[in-house]
């Protein structure tokens, strides 16, 4: 059973609500906060849907819509000049091959993860790092994420490439989301918000079907900061308590028309029809891999017992 992400449109604005490009089904538009689904509904929705049928009468298998949140790196870079369908297809095949060897779990910005990497300079030849995912990006085999932790009072960030063959294991210790898509402000926050014990155990979740959103509001250190956080509409920080001139300047510099810019959204995203095609292509293999891993895990538990 696939875990189902809570449907929440991160991108604000009128354009996203009505524009099908964002692949949000029309029944679920114009709402920024969805009520948490019951597990029954979630179960129904997590199974891959079968469309009523195309002209030839064959049923068309469609991946569940949450795939675009769980596996965002399968979507290519939207820049039209550099797109090529054949190359994207070949890259997807390679990505699935790599995923068949290493489990790359579902994670979001704000999840606490542990990554084990082969390292020639380590005493055990393997280096394990635990941290909170503050940013993720890239598409295809270039997909990456940054983990942050504070070790011996020193903030440490490591960028991992998800498909690098040196990575032995990726574990998600705490699967949750935050109020922002990028947590770079943790660099200017008090260190306790970025500190996680290096021997942290994976946390069990009570409700498997929904990924919780942690409504934590982080306290920032006094200025100077690395970026002008007051200009970025951050939801996950406490009141910045800055003099009014900062907010005035932020207003002057802001681009409030961007949320009405349909073409901007169009250029930043892959069209819904293409997303469906891509994930339909890929989801059966991902499901098979997930299934095999579950069996292996169960066998592992049985063997232990």
């Amino acid at each position, binding site marked *: 059973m696939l875990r189902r992400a809570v449907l929440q449109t991160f991108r604000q604005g009128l354009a996203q609500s009505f524009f099908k490009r964002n692949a949000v089904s029309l029944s679920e538009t114009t709402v920024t906060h969805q009520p948490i689904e019951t597990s029954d509904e979630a179960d129904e929705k997590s199974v891959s849907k079968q469309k009523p049928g195309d002209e030839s009468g064959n049923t068309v298998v469609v991946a569940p819509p949450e795939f675009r949140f769980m596996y965002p790196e399968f979507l290519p870079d939207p820049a039209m*000049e*550099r*797109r*090529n369908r*054949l*190359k994207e297809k*070949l*890259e997807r095949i*390679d*990505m699935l*091959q*790599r995923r*068949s*060897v*290493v489990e790359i779990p579902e994670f979001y910005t704000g999840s606490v993860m542990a990554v084990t990497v*082969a*390292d*020639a300079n380590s005493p055990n*030849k*393997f280096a394990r790092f635990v941290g909170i995912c503050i940013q993720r990006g890239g598409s*295809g*085999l*270039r997909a990456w994420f940054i983990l942050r932790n504070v070790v011996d009072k020193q903030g440490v960030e490591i960028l991992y*490439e998800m*498909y*690098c*063959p*040196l*990575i*032995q294991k990726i574990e998600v210790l705490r699967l949750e989301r935050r109020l922002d898509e990028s947590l770079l402000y943790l660099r200017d926050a008090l260190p306790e918000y970025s500190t996680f014990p290096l021997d942290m155990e994976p946390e069990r979740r009570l409700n498997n079907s929904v990924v919780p959103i942690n409504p934590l509001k982080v306290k920032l250190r006094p200025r100077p900061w690395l970026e002008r956080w007051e200009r970025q509409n951050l939801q996950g920080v406490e009141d910045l308590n800055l003099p009014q001139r900062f907010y005035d300047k932020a207003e002057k510099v802001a681009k409030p028309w961007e949320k009405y810019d349909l073409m901007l959204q169009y250029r930043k995203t892959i069209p819904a029809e293409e997303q469906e095609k891509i994930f339909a292509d890929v989801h059966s293999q991902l499901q098979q891999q997930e299934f095999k891993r579950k069996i292996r895990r169960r066998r592992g538990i049985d063997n232990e017992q």
Partner: protein
Amino acid sequence: MSTLGLLRTLFNPKIVTPNAIQLQSLNRSPFLVGLFFNHEQVRTMSRVKRRTTHPPYWHVLKNNQRQDEKISSDNLRFVREVIQDKYKNKSPIKGSDLDIEKKEWDPKTKRSGVIARNIGVQHMWEKDGKKVVCTVLHVLDNHVIRYVPPEEYAKSIIGAKVFRNRKPLGCLVVGAEAANPDRFTRQYCSLFNEVGLLPKKRLARFIVTPNAVLPPCTPLTAGHFVVGQAVDVYGKTIDYGFQGVVKRWGFKGGPASHGATKFHRRGGTIGTGRDKARVWPGQKMPGHMGSERRFCRGLKIVRINMKYNVIYVKGTVPGPTNSIVQIFDTVLPRRKFTEAPPHPTYFPPEDGTLPQEDIWDSSLHVFGSPSISV
């Protein structure tokens, strides 16, 4: 002859690659520059016209100049049927059908090249975990159109220049990307009448030795190359348009602040006023940048996908994504073939099975294999 000219001929042998005209590269060694050249700037490409927007005058008009004719749907269908009938019976040549006697490969053989499209860049990893940026080249539906024997080619305009003081070689005309004949002129389609193929969007010439000749209508695929070999890739660089002096020539411009008035990305002085008292030809100035013929030499092939006809080449090639490039065996002497490659080209087995779909170089980490432990 001036001192400069004499020194140029003494120290700079003319490097002419067989597959295109290339101007001589200048020896810029610091020793020579200090000893002989004073402060004279070296200006080679000053008077040469580097790009044109029109094809050479001996090319036939290619694209159909007529506007969309108002044809009824019935007639359109009929036209399509005629085209299908005309071209349907041509089948690609198999290895056993080769008309000419199979000639032996020797180290001096020049094989045909291949027309491909640069479809993007993919990251791969070597067995020690080092990341490698590979360009993905999709070999299009190449067919040999015509062979021009050495004697005839040496009389043509380009051939005469290329083989001025050398023994002439033959030339294979290869076409790629079949298209609807409607979009081309009759003269252009007539180039393909002998072969009986659908007219191709792109044509290229490859210089070959007579023992690597291929008969017309031979298909060329990704299997023409061998994993691990070095290739040269010819392409036209990214077109940047009219660019200023900072981007085009790497000038430093002026200070961003400290009172600089309107002098941030300009070139500054363009002459001394004393020596020669004029602007020298070849003075670096703003102008059109890019869209130039370039070769990337000695790129290693790290992976070939026979099913999709795709070659992965280590490094980057000239040109933007989705542009057409030409690939051929390298001319670099230390990276040439020591063993015989598929000669004159690769022919798939008669029963249609592929011996191996995806061939990887031994240095690369295959994605389906276990993670690397150092």
